């Protein structure tokens, strides 16, 4: 009786860890293989190996010296950073109103915001293109910032509204009695308490903007205004029949590293229980 019980328990834990290993391998393998490939050169590229066989940084050197890739990297940083800052600013002020100010149609407005995020990118591409042409920002970073902000806002507003609702009303009222204006309440009382939510949503918005491809392809036309996802896709080799896999992989790794670094930095900043002590308990 006990033997079968132990066997069942053993099987369960084996299955559990097997599943964990499977998931990890499946999700990490593509990136691992990209790193592996980026360190190869010449015809080595087309020999399938699963362990590092050579260590050649030539691909990295050529991608960084080649054409406008460094410029594309800077574009990506600029576009993503401005998108995050802009979206967070609008979302924080909007969520204050949506969570704390009573007005007619608040629920409807929240639902509309959620509905906006349901449109597929393809559906709005043509319309957005016209808007961007009309605004005269076609083929500038602002076209991307504008469109990314539109697509990031519903998510950011929802998360921050939910989070702000959880903040104790008494703290806000104490600030009102202390003579604080809504702006002071947002910047000096709420923002410091919202760091975890800001970091999380900001990070997700950054990743979305950083990896976005379709808008970036459509709204830019010159090498100098492209962002890295498009630049990588358009990397070309010596002839039209050659696809420079080594360089593409090196570029992909370079592009992924900033994201990993950002996550690692901010992971420490996501401190839960920041409101502890302000109110009872």
């Amino acid at each position, binding site marked *: 009786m006990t033997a079968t019980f132990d066997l069942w328990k053993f099987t369960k834990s084996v299955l559990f860890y097997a599943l964990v290993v499977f998931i990890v391998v499946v999700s990490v393998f593509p990136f691992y293989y990209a790193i592996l490939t980026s360190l190869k050169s010449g015809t080595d590229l087309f020999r399938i190996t699963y362990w590092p066989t050579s260590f050649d940084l030539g691909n990295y050197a050529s991608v960084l010296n080649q054409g406008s890739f460094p410029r594309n990297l800077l574009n990506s940083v600029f576009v993503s950073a401005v998108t995050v800052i802009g979206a967070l600013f609008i979302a924080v002020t909007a969520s204050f109103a949506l969570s704390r100010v009573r007005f007619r149609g608040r629920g409807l407005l929240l639902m509309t915001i959620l509905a906006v995020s349901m449109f597929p990118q393809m559906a709005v591409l043509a319309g957005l293109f016209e808007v961007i042409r009309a605004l005269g920002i076609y083929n500038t970073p602002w076209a991307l910032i504008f469109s990314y902000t539109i697509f990031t806002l519903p998510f950011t507003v929802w998360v921050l509204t939910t989070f702000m609702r959880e903040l*104790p009303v*008494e*703290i806000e*009222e*104490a*600030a*009102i*009695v*202390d*003579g*604080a204006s809504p702006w*002071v309440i947002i910047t*000096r*009382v709420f923002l*410091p*308490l919202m760091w975890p939510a800001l970091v999380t949503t900001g990070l997700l918005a950054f990743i979305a903007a950083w990896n976005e491809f379709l808008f970036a392809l459509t709204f830019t036309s010159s090498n100098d205004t492209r962002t890295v996802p498009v630049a990588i896709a358009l990397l070309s080799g010596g002839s039209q029949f050659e696809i420079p896999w080594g360089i593409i992989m090196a570029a992909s790794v370079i592009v992924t590293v900033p994201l990993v670094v950002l996550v690692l930095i901010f992971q420490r900043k996501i401190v839960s229980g*920041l*409101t*502890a*002590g*302000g*109110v*009872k308990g």
Partner: protein
Amino acid sequence: MASIELRNVRKAFGAVEVIKGVDLEVRKGEFMVFVGPSGCGKSTLLRLISGLEDITSGEMLFDGKVVNALAPSKRGIAMVFQSYALYPHMTVYENMAFGLTLEKGQSKEEIQRRVEKAADMLQIRQYLDRLPKQLSGGQRQRVAIGRAITRDPKVFLFDEPLSNLDAALRVATRIEIAKLHEEMNQVTMIYVTHDQVEAMTLADRICVLRDGLVEQVGSPMELYEHPNSVFVAGFIGSPKMNFISGEKAAAFNAETVGIRGEHIAIVPDNGTWSGTVIHTENLGADSYVYLEMGTEEPVVVRLDGANDYKSGDVVHIAPMEDKIHRFDGAGKPIR
């Protein structure tokens, strides 16, 4: 230093009227306590005075000036919340200084002087660098009071400030608030509580509220000795006043008679009434005997010192004639 006057103040949330026409005057430098059962509108009334809620109709005057539309910070009030409501990310010093830093023309030295003065008053100077989460409940509440003092308000509002503290701390903090009132005798204080002991011990005058209306306003002793209704009589005083109706009350020419436990004596025989002991509580200094004698709730007799009555004993009791409260059918006193 401000007198507050409410003229037919009403407050409705949607269709529900919470405050149903309150007329009240709070004098300069007075300690006024709003007391009543939960849901009677006492906290709402305080929030109307603070300006955190708008009045639906009626007038609110501070020193004779209408303040209906004035923002809380412009009314010269400071408020202490039940849940402390400290800013969690600021140190004690920053918490207390926050209001002052928002005022224009306050120098750093002046702010520091006022914060330190308030901190000394409440003996929290050694905690000024700490965050709220590093403090105990009692210390947090003192910081909240300190934050209010720092603003040098004309009116001090307390919204059930002691209800989150444990019993011992509650008594200690209550005494501190009483001391504070003595030291700041220029400041009008309004205090909301559902605990009639806090009301009796702290108040210059008590305002008993019931269902959004003022039931009675008066000094603690006035309310204790001359309650204006059965409701007030039952609410003020601990243990609760005993109410006896029916034939026994008819003997006193009243619908209901009320008599406090401390005004009943247990006599060997020939008492006015008699009853069976169902429970006794010995508290050392005094003791309570609960008697079953056909009333809705058992009659409580308060005795000095301990007693050794047992359940099932039949005892005779005699109320002090001059301490009997007689009420008519509408619950109003017969005098």
